[in-house]
């Protein structure tokens, strides 16, 4: 269905190729997963399928890409709209209209389909993706998962033979991600659609893949059976790493396969020694915090005490009040009731300058914090506004992400580099507590590991809101679960995440009932034996 024949591609002005010598064939009715480090060219590969590369991006394409027998060289994206449906990273940014039904119909209108056909397909798609109740809703009022499903639906109504998705679950909470993936699974199995997905959160998608394409940083690809390709790639979900560690052949990709093999490992490992992590003196105390927007109460009486060096993960569905709580704790956001004290001082009573020396916050869109034209200017500005000696911010940045050029525009950085820059800016005044809102979005496994290590090394008290259970398992010492603005669970990471399947990391699922959380823990235990 999709065929790449010796494809290479170089962006205009780029020093090296983004893709080189790619030979790839994806047969009809397969779900194919594209993996690779951040910046390896996954989006480029996906966009080459419908001709956005090179028609929209410019640049030089060598070789050829055939989709359903059509050459993308001679067919620009709009002419391929009836064969390839593309769903971008940020569904909201790709919406042309503002209501669900109109958005679903847009592609069909462009294709000039007759009205009765459009009516029929819109109804089918609404049912297929479980959107029927939302049909008249404005898109802006939908949750992230609903928006993602609308974006998938909008691509589906044109009845394309190929569906291409760029990180469809990275912004979603585990439950919403399941919904989207279940819908995709049904498309492949019931309708025989060919699906190509790029994703960083492999623990969510790898089990559904029929084939994995590993795109290495020099632009070449390795394609094949999921287990074997992932085992040799630098990015792999924990279950694959565990399989490699235990020497299982073939390497399992799903929890089910891994559990079948895990009996021996479970009995040989035994329970992990439970060590209560040391908690330092209390640096932040929040009591009965409430945040109300109009008639909606986003946070209802949350109390939280954080000790020095403690790393607290806030988890919970989209809209459970995590972000509101972080902003209220920092003092810049709204707080309708309750009290927050950082070393005895309420940060909300401070001026913004001293406030950031007490509590630092990295918001969900880290780019909002940046407004200058180069990385160097941002670093110098951060030193100035924190009253630190010159070079403090730059040194922090080099520690978090070495080798970011000084003269680069912040908008041109990769997700990981931009996050590192913003984190460095936030850490420059060395605040007592650091709050992070969804820090792992768009980061691959090695980048996440580096982030976790750097944060642990710096030793700040950290509160982070996230959906990323694997990151939590690896990094957090304590987990607080919010639902509807209230704390429903609070305890050490091991206790909380193993108690609920939605928040369980893969290793815990494989080795349940034993409360092992990460491959690293298991490896250390095996090595100590």
């Amino acid at each position, binding site marked *: 269905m999709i065929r790449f024949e010796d494809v290479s591609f170089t962006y205009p002005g780029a020093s090296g190729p983004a893709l080189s010598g790619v030979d790839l064939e994806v047969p009809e009715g397969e779900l194919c997963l594209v993996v690779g480090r951040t910046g390896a060219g996954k989006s480029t590969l996906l966009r080459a399928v419908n001709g956005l590369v090179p028609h929209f991006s410019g640049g030089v394409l060598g070789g050829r890409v055939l989709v359903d027998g059509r050459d993308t060289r001679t067919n620009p994206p709009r002419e391929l709209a009836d064969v390839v449906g593309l769903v971008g990273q940020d569904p909201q940014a790709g919406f042309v209209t503002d209501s669900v039904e109109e958005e679903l*119909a847009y592609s069909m209108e462009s294709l000039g389909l007759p009205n009765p056909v459009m009516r029929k397909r819109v109804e089918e798609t609404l049912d297929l993706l479980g959107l029927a109740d939302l049909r008249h809703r404005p898109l802006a009022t939908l949750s992230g998962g609903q928006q993602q499903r609308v974006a998938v639906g909008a691509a589906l109504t044109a009845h394309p033979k190929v569906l291409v998705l760029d990180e469809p679950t990275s912004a979603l909470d585990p439950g919403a991600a399941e919904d989207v993936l279940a819908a995709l699974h049904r498309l492949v199995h019931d309708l025989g659609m060919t699906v190509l997905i790029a994703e960083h959160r492999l623990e969510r998608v790898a089990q559904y893949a029929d084939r994995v394409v590993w795109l290495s940083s020099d632009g070449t690809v390795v394609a094949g059976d999921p287990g074997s390709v992932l085992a040799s790639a630098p990015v792999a979900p924990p279950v694959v790493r565990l399989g490699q560690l235990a020497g299982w052949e073939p390497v399992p990709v799903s929890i089910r396969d891994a559990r079948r093999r895990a009996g021996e490992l479970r009995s040989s490992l035994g329970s992990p020694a439970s060590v209560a992590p040391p908690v330092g003196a209390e640096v932040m105390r929040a009591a009965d915090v409430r945040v109300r927007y109009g008639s909606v109460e986003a946070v209802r009486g949350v109390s939280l005490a954080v000790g020095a060096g403690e790393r607290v993960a806030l988890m919970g569905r989209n809209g459970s009040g995590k972000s509101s709580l972080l902003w209220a704790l920092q003092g810049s956001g709204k707080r309708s009731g309750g009290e927050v004290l950082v070393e005895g001082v309420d940060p909300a009573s401070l001026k913004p300058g001293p406030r*950031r020396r007490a509590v630092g916050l990295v918001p969900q869109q880290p780019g909002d914090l940046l407004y200058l034209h180069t990385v160097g200017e941002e670093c110098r500005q951060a030193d100035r506004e924190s009253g630190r000696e010159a070079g403090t911010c730059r040194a922090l940045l080099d520690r978090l992400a070495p080798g970011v050029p000084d003269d680069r525009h912040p908008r041109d950085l990769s997700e990981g580099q931009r996050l590192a820059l913003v984190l460095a800016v936030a850490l420059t005044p060395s605040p007592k507590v650091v709050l992070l809102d969804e820090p792992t979005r768009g980061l691959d496994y090695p980048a996440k590991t580096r982030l976790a290590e750097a944060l642990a090394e710096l030793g700040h008290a950290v509160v982070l809101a996230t959906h990323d259970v694997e990151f939590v398992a690896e990094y957090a010492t304590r987990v607080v679960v919010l639902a509807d603005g209230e704390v429903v669970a609070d305890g050490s990471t091991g206790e909380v995440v193993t108690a609920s399947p939605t928040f369980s990391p893969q290793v815990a699922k494989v080795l349940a009932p034993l409360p092992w959380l990460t491959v690293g823990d298991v490896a250390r235990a095996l090595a100590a034996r």
Partner: protein
Amino acid sequence: MSGAVHPGAWWLWALGLAVVASRATNPVVLGLVVAVAGFVAVTCRQDTPWADSYDMFFKFGLAVLGIRVLFHVLLGGVDGPTVLLDLPEVPLPDWARGIRLGGPLTAEGLVFALCQGLQLATLLCCVGAANALANAKRLLRSLPAALYEVSVAVVVAMTVAPQLVASARSVRRARALRGDVVRGVRAVKLLLVPVLEGAFERSLVLAAAMDSRGYGRHAGLPTRTRVLTGFLVLGGLVGLCVGAYALLDGGSAGVPVLVVGAVPAAAGLWTGSRRVRRSRYRPDTWGTREALVVGSGLIAAVTAVLGPDLVMPTVPLTAPDLPLLPALGLLCALAPVLIADRKKP
């Protein structure tokens, strides 16, 4: 959605009322127009962001009425024998000849100004009723296909505008995180740049999405149609130019030439529309209800045109009467209340 009357029908209905108002300075007739427009607007408006437009325009109309009267008091104009007040006249330099500041204020002049102001306010009320009743988004969907690109740009604008407001808010909050209190002129720069950068990135993402979804698959026009379109459009424009000149020259030919010029221009728009090969999902259709709504407005307009003079006599001052035929016509314009869907409670 399907239950609502076509927005174009509401505008034509409001245009009918506006025709009545434009011919009348009789306060009774004007009051009746305001009442009819207001009653229909309040009864038939749907639950849209524009539903409150009538109130807004009504208040605006009152303000305009006040300003018009103030103008008369200060700058004079039509006079009569009954002097109410003699304001001192301010002498103006020679170049400003013809402008009078101050001077006697007469009852006749005041009534005249009041009626003119009321006429203007009534016209505003008609526009307000149309704004409240017609769903602007659906009106946008009814633009001719030749304006497809422009209408997509407007649709995009309406989708993106609220997102930009949200993004400005989050940037502002983020600025506070860097220890800045953003105020004054500096705020424009500090807020605008991140919001704009974000907006432009968004525009590229959006453009890619539109491209992938078939935006701009043009059929291309056969040469004959293209030539015909050019001929019609340019011919029509020339006709309109000639008509405008004739109108300003004082000749009686102006109006007919303008109308004659408009026809090929509109036809050119129609033939040019065939360049866009696309269809409409659930297009707004014209049915009996639309015809009835437009018809009721048309009756009001026709009765006002055919009926007696609706001008308020000022010299000598007499009480305004209520001419029967236009009044009946205006009552017909209440028909949408019975025809159109009412707002759900």
